[in-house]
């Protein structure tokens, strides 16, 4: 069967004609995809039977939106991008980047003026516009402030780029203080500041830092040693259950159990490492995935020890190095010792600094290990296993140390997680978590610590922000729950970011070994390993 390719059609057709055709195809495909799933809805009637209700209006809206979107992109988006490129070449000037066009001084001033006006007139506007429109006003104000801040960051981008790590650590260290102080100023009292900071420190700060730590731990296995591990969450689970069981049963302190949990996870890492030493690529991937599932299934089914799906609750809190506690009833409760007002925020802020410390420990160990023989052996293993063996590197111990070190940090993060939640159940350790952590490592650019941290901030912070989008209720009606769409958008964001930057956020690498001059190389030169 001969396949005829006819490129003439695309050349002859004007963009608009082509766009109409493309839009028609896109609409037809969308109709096919969504006719049963959006057009119809299965629901239960009173006698618990399934019945169908129709939503043709919604279906039509989605199909038309798809077609129109495709039309606009093909008819105007693509030619615009192409002509921009040609114009830049023709004028001979260095083309302004998209960011340069986006951040202009007049826009910055306008954003500042809008933000200031809306901030000053906030109370009178609330009365004037009514609650519905006032929500929009607040949204516009937030956008203006974000734009102004982004402009400032953009202006200082060279400085930020040069001192990124130091600035990042400083910002992370100051974050809870800034949150408490600004909320205290906003609310008018210190108590309000502490109370309001709970959400920001706990949901955003601690949550993101846990994922940063997990991703940095997995980075040792995937990014440095090039071993694809789809069951990393198992070590997280081992650490969490180690602290939960030993802490509740024997009353041991967090500070003893933290290294114990790390050691136990490392032990399990070696245990997983042994059978998979000979496996490569996707065989390795499925065995690690199976290992993660086995751990989860054992946690669910070994009810005598783990209490099954119900999980373990009442896990003791972390103490302030044994000197002070965070339980209100204790005689050495922190507020009593320091003679300050009682608040639950102290514990969260303490936990924030604890996880920040653990993260920095992980980063420090990773950076140092990369310069030691074992770290170099990991990277050599990733680049070429056969060459490694020919040069006398023991691949068995190299792989096992990678698994053990990665697992140990997973165990640390797990015991921290158990202490933070006060409750663990197998539901926290599903495959989805492994997938999210792996996605953060890959999106961050595999092997780049800064990139991974940025990826964790974007992906986890982004999904947490979706919990806060109550103003959408005013747009789509009170039945609309943005919460529901959180994971749908998360999955789509994963696809889009990967298509946009297949090499991750940080596309260059700092080599640890170099001949004369240290020069960053493109990420495309690093391999991702076979095993």
């Amino acid at each position, binding site marked *: 069967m001969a396949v005829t390719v006819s490129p003439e059609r695309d050349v002859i057709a004007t963009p608009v004609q082509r766009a109409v055709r493309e839009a028609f195809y896109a609409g037809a495909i969308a109709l096919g995809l969504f006719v*049963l799933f959006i057009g119809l809805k299965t629901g239960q009637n009173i006698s618990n039977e399934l019945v169908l209700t129709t939503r043709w209006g919604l279906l039509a809206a989605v199909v038309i939106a798809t077609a129109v979107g495709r039309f606009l992109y093909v008819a105007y988006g693509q030619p615009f991008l192409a002509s921009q490129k040609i114009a830049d070449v023709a004028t001979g000037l260095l083309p302004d980047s998209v960011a340069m066009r986006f951040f202009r001084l007049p826009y910055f001033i306008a954003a500042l003026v809008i933000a200031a006006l809306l901030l000053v007139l906030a109370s009178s506007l609330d009365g004037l516009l009514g609650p519905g429109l006032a929500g929009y006003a607040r949204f516009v104000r937030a956008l203006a402030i974000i734009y102004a801040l982004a402009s400032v960051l953009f202006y200082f981008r060279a400085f930020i780029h040069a001192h990124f790590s130091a600035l990042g650590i400083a910002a992370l260290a100051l974050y809870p203080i800034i949150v408490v102080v600004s909320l205290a100023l906003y609310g008018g009292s210190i108590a309000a500041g502490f109370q309001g900071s709970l959400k920001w420190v706990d949901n955003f700060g601690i949550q993101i830092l846990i994922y940063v730590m997990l991703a940095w731990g997995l980075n040792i296995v995937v990014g440095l040693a090039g071993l694809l591990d789809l069951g990393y969450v198992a070590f997280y689970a081992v650490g969490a259950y180690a602290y939960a069981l030993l802490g509740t049963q024997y009353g041991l302190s967090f500070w003893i159990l933290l290294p114990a949990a790390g050691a136990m996870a490392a032990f399990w890492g070696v245990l997983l490492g042994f059978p*998979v030493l*000979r496996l490569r690529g996707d*065989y390795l991937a499925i*065995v690690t995935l199976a290992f993660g599932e086995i751990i989860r299934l054992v946690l669910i089914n070994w009810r005598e020890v783990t209490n099954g799906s119900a999980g373990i609750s009442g896990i003791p809190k972390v103490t302030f190095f044994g000197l002070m506690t965070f339980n209100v009833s204790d005689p050495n409760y922190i507020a009593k010792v320091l003679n300050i007002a009682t608040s639950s925020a102290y514990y969260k802020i303490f936990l924030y600094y604890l996880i920040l410390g653990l993260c920095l420990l992980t980063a420090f160990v990773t950076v140092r290990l990369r310069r030691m023989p074992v770290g170099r052996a990991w990277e050599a293993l990733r680049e070429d296993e056969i060459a490694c063996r020919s040069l006398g590197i023991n691949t068995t111990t190299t792989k096992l140390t990678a698994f053990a070190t990665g697992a140990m940090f997973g165990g640390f993060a797990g015991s921290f997680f158990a202490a933070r939640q006060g409750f663990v159940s197998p539901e926290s350790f599903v495959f989805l978590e492994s997938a999210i952590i792996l996605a953060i490592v890959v999106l961050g650019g595999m092997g780049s610590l800064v990139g991974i941290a940025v990826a964790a901030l974007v992906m986890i912070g982004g999904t947490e922000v979706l919990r806060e989008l109550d103003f959408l209720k005013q747009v789509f009606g009170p039945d609309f729950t943005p919460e529901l769409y959180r994971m749908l958008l998360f999955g789509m964001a994963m*696809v889009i970011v990967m298509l946009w930057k297949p090499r991750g956020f940080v596309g260059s690498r700092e080599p640890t070994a170099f001949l004369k001059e240290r020069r960053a190389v493109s990420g495309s030169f690093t391999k991702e390993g076979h095993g």
Partner: protein
Amino acid sequence: MQYFVQQLINGLTLGSIYGLIAIGYTMVYGIIGMINFAHGDIFMVGAFTALIVFLILGAMFYSVPVVVALLVMMIVAMLLTSLYNWTIEKVAYRPLRGSFRLAPLITAIGMSIALSNFVQVTQGPRNKPIPPMVSKVYNIEGISVSLKQIIIVVVTALLLALFWYLVNKTSLGRAQRACEQDRKMAALLGIDVDRTISITFIMGAALAAVAGTLFLMYYGVIAFSDGFVPGVKAFTAAVLGGIGSLPGAVLGGLMIGFIESMWSAYFSIDYKDVAAFSILAIVLIFLPSGILGRPEVEKV
């Protein structure tokens, strides 16, 4: 003995479904070397499509013969599920072809999350039960064989025969095998590689849709999250049989089915998945490229 044969039949039924899904994994892996993580959710979409078609048939006609209903469900599910897999390949995998190996894996995981949550958002999070379609049970010397099980095994056998014919005897199958061996060479010889890959995805999705319809008929219930476990089992089956090998996928599916039913019958039902995964690990220690897989020759 009767009990053993009974479990053998149960295992065969379960294994047929796993085998059908596993073929989709193994074909995609063979041709573009990626794990299509969204395949389990494609299976779930197939089952959901069958469910909705079943409800439409029930609402529009007073009574439909079961055979006709099953056929219609299967065909519509095959068509629409293929469309899903085709679109996903085009949107999420094709732009990353030739990029590094983990990039399509991540988009596949993203698609898997997006698909299951799309079904949750549009169809609701609850389990969807349907009344039993086929309830006849034959009793042969103390062994009970339900008509459902016979349908599953027969449909699977027919499809596998058709599929074997497609891959081994048609020009399409030849193109597929050529792309599997060397994509660049196949392109030089005039094979439209993009089209062949698209057709591979369509075929995998069609088989997964049949598996979904049979799953719905057998268990009578489906939920948005039901794609993951059969997906992982089928993936395990594909790897156990040797990923890239079609007979291996079927063999692996049957093995996983047997292990599961035997383990639940003789040991403990709670640990049946643990048993399946452990046997996978043990087999791979001794046969690192699966039972029928070709060992990867490494050239320096």
